[in-house]
């Protein structure tokens, strides 16, 4: 079945979109939410488990203080109220990767609620209202075997690893975001991207979307233009990059409009995002049968953070993002346009780290926005997930500044970094990329170029120094780019004038 998609501009002519985002943040605590098992990604299967996170009969949960602290700090950074008293609740449903067949979560008493975050899109600020941030635990991971490609359909059976079960999650839920219009996809992306920056600045999560530390579910509905109502929404799950957040919103807007234009109605359902094809497909229907039978977790006592503790944690918050953006722009000397591009590319945090590692702001911007931004785009990944670190970018720039590399050679170093060939220095050595400034080799190449282009040489002899560029190009070609262009120019002029 193929969905009918309406052209994006036509969607906006007839409908107003409303967005909602649910972001799960996996905390980087040492231990799990309710037991002392390590909360780390990976590991041999079922090696980071205990009676509690395996849901063995009789085992009991005890809350990780650090997870509460992280939850409160996230709440405060999102300008939320922090509950004076709240409880955990059981969300009851059966699934093999959930050891107890209930998830210990929070229901109507979240630890943080009623906040907001300002996000910037194209120089315009949108205030995203935060409904709640609550604590819960992750599930185990299933591997589906015997079928075709590891997907569930057609699988013979599944193999479950509970290492991830019980890792603390904070779920951050926005209120419906209305009025974004054509910018709805970009607002969704900007929200998730700027939320990630905030989480990183708080230091509470690795926040890597490609690793599943940060997972976004995108709710979208359309309403007749100007009606002000909320239409029926769909929830698109597992949208695992900023880019996909934007694409998924766009796709769902076009798909909803296709159904509504034909007089159909939207089914309230879960949909799955397919990164490869850029479409969503129907998941399970959200029917009334989905009855989670929430009730307060009787094995845990209420959490009642003292106001003193909350204020003490408020003192540990990083700078507020809007002020921080203004400060960085001033510190870095970027124009408004440059800053807007940096924000749009989602690389503000990367540039900050690159500058911290020693690069100039302009050099950092140049690499992240042009060369690396292009590569991320080509690879279809977020720039934060490209696999090049700010420290590496700063190291490459240092090699350029020191005369070892020029920009062209630096690009080859990035090839090497993406191929996992080692540090920039190792790649330069292994690939033989250093600029040749040995006059002997350069001089011979210059002589060859002069001999091969006598007419150009004559022009230079006649004082047309600008013609040297053609000879420099020849030399660079012969030296396969590894020549110091400035030195080549000097040699040509020495020989011909």
């Amino acid at each position, binding site marked *: 079945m193929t969905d009918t998609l309406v052209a994006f501009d036509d969607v906006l002519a007839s409908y107003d979109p409303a967005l909602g985002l649910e972001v799960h943040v996996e905390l980087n605590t040492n231990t799990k939410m309710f037991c002392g098992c390590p909360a780390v990604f990976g590991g041999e299967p079922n090696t980071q488990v205990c009676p509690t996170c395996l849901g063995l009969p009789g085992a009991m949960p005890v809350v990780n203080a650090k997870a509460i602290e992280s939850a409160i700090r996230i709440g405060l950074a999102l300008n939320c109220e922090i509950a004076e008293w709240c409880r955990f609740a059981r969300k009851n449903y059966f699934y093999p990767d959930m050891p107890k067949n209930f998830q210990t979560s929070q229901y109507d008493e979240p630890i943080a609620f009623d906040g907001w975050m300002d996000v910037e899109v194209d120089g315009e600020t949108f205030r995203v209202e935060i409904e709640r941030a609550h604590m819960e635990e992750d599930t185990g991971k299933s591997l589906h075997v015997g079928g075709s490609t590891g997907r569930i359909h057609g699988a013979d059976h599944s193999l479950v690893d509970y290492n991830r079960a019980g890792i603390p999650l904070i779920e951050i839920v926005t209120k419906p975001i209305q009025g974004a219009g054509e910018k709805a996809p970009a607002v969704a992306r900007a929200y998730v991207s700027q939320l990630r920056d905030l989480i990183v600045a708080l230091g509470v999560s690795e926040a890597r979307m490609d690793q599943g530390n940060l997972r976004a579910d995108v709710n979208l509905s359309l309403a007749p233009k100007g009606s002000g109502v909320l239409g029926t929404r769909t929830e698109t799950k597992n949208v695992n990059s900023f880019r996909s957040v934007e694409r998924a919103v766009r796709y769902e807007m076009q798909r909803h409009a296709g159904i509504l234009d034909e007089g159909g109605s939207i089914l309230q359902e879960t949909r799955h995002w397919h990164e490869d094809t850029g479409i969503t497909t129907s998941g399970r229907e959200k029917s009334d049968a989905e009855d989670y039978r929430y*009730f307060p977790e009787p094995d845990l006592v209420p959490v009642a953070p003292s106001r003193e503790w909350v204020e003490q944690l408020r003192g540990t918050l990083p700078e507020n993002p809007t002020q921080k953006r203004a400060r960085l722009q001033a510190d870095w000397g970027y124009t408004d346009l440059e800053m807007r591009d940096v924000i749009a590319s989602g690389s503000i945090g990367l540039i900050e780290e690159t500058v911290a590692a020693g690069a100039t702001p302009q050099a950092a911007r140049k690499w992240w926005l042009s060369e690396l931004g292009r590569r991320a785009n080509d690879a279809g990944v977020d720039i934060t997930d490209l696999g090049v670190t700010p420290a590496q970018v700063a190291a490459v720039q240092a090699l350029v500044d020191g005369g070892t590399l020029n920009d062209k050679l630096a690009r080859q170093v990035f090839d090497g970094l993406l191929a996992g060939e080692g540090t920039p220095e190792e790649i330069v050595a292994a690939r033989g990329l250093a600029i040749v400034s040995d006059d002997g080799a350069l001089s011979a190449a210059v002589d060859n170029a002069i001999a091969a282009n006598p007419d150009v040489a004559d022009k230079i002899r006649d004082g047309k120094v600008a013609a040297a560029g053609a000879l420099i190009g020849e030399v660079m070609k012969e030296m396969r780019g590894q020549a110091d262009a400035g030195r080549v120019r000097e040699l040509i002029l020495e020989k011909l004038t």
Partner: protein
Amino acid sequence: MAENTDWTRKTAAELADALAAGETTSVEITQAHLDRIAAVDGAVHAFLHVDAEGALAQAAESDARRAAGTLLSGLDGVPIAVKDVLATDGLPTTCGSKILEGWIPPYDATVVRRLKEAGLPILGKTNMDEFAMGSSTEHSAYGATHNPWDLDRIPGGSGGGSAAAVAAFEAPLALGTDTGGSIRQPGAVTGTVGHKPTYGGVSRYGLVALANSLDQVGPVTRTVLDSALLHEIIGGHDPKDSTSIDQPLPALVEAARQGATGDLTGLKVGVITELSGDGWQPGVMARFQESVDLLVKAGAEVVEVSCPTFVHALATYYLILPAEASSNLAKFDAMRYGLRVWPHEGASAEEVMRASRDAGFGDEVKRRIILGTYALSSGYYDAYYGQAQKVRTLISRDFEAAFEKVDVLVSPTAPTTAFKLGEKLDDPIAMYLNDLATIPANLAGVPGISVPSGLADEDGLPAGFQVLAPALADDRCYRVAAALESALHAQWGGPLVPKEIA
């Protein structure tokens, strides 16, 4: 040396003294109980699993410690039986259910660990109603336990196995658990002592939860002093149980010893109006009244106290318990442990879950899971679970008001003596009524003890006397129960003992 001493007839305190005096060894005592189990448990069926080898090995270690002067506790070397709802590392733990047949936990419940750290050899695991749901032990998937006083009758429940084991001299001590009376009601109908501690007073870590907000682990013994001794070993704060009280236990053994002197001068006792009177078995009421009179004789002042909301306790309990239980028992799904039933070849995980849970759970468990699922489902939550939680508050307030007037509250433990096996098996409501007097304490989290009050005239079967105290004041239960016990023993010329099992 007492050559012909029957060590199974001794209390735990007496065994500890004999061990200390060098009159016997832990191996000898433990073997005596294993022999007794071999002799009578075919008829009583108190045990689901007997670990003779393990118990004797632990007993030998205890004897070695005694020789080396490195004893772990006052009860080091005194054997004990453990209700099968408590996780025991390396020993089967079935909770009386087919769904856990053959499951061997890889860890110990905190109370079991504390028994081991105190040097008590573990004789085995005792029978119970499946997942502790019942008042007769007939809901065990492995067959009913029989009351040592009359093998045709129930031993109470859910901890009928622990009570019967102690009553039949198969163990001097046992652990029970009490969610709505599962320690106290079996104690009453088998003529033994059982104490439900203050909620949070004993760790629940490793207790396979029935209703988490009501469950408590406690001692099952033949004397009040033995219960206090055992309680001091298992009790106290456990960081693995978030609902555990981070305070030292009151001096329980001291309270029991003080009570045994028989002086209750200055103590105010409240008889709960709502938990006596019409509809209660006359013989049970007669023994209760005589016991109250004995307390007066010991110097206590007795008044009537009304707790009007107690009439709703049973209904409140039968909404809260199934709700929590329905969620607790969801983990038994044939994925990670326990019974796995394939309804047909190539069945899905969900189909296997459904089939396994149908095959693995008994009727009473299914009834309560469905009732609990109903009480929690959207649209019914406020009317059922939510309302029950509010009435629960009112019941606690009744206790608070009562304890402003009196030091302890008393009632018969159960409305009747032991009924016949099978008599109420298919009448859930009649079965639930057994817990009428014991449930309020669980709802409010306060401690309660049951101590034998004598034999009912109609049937010659034991009746129980319940003493309830404010939260954290478990010592009052022990003091009053010990005073009553010593007065009754003086009257009877010793404890009541069932006639020898044929």
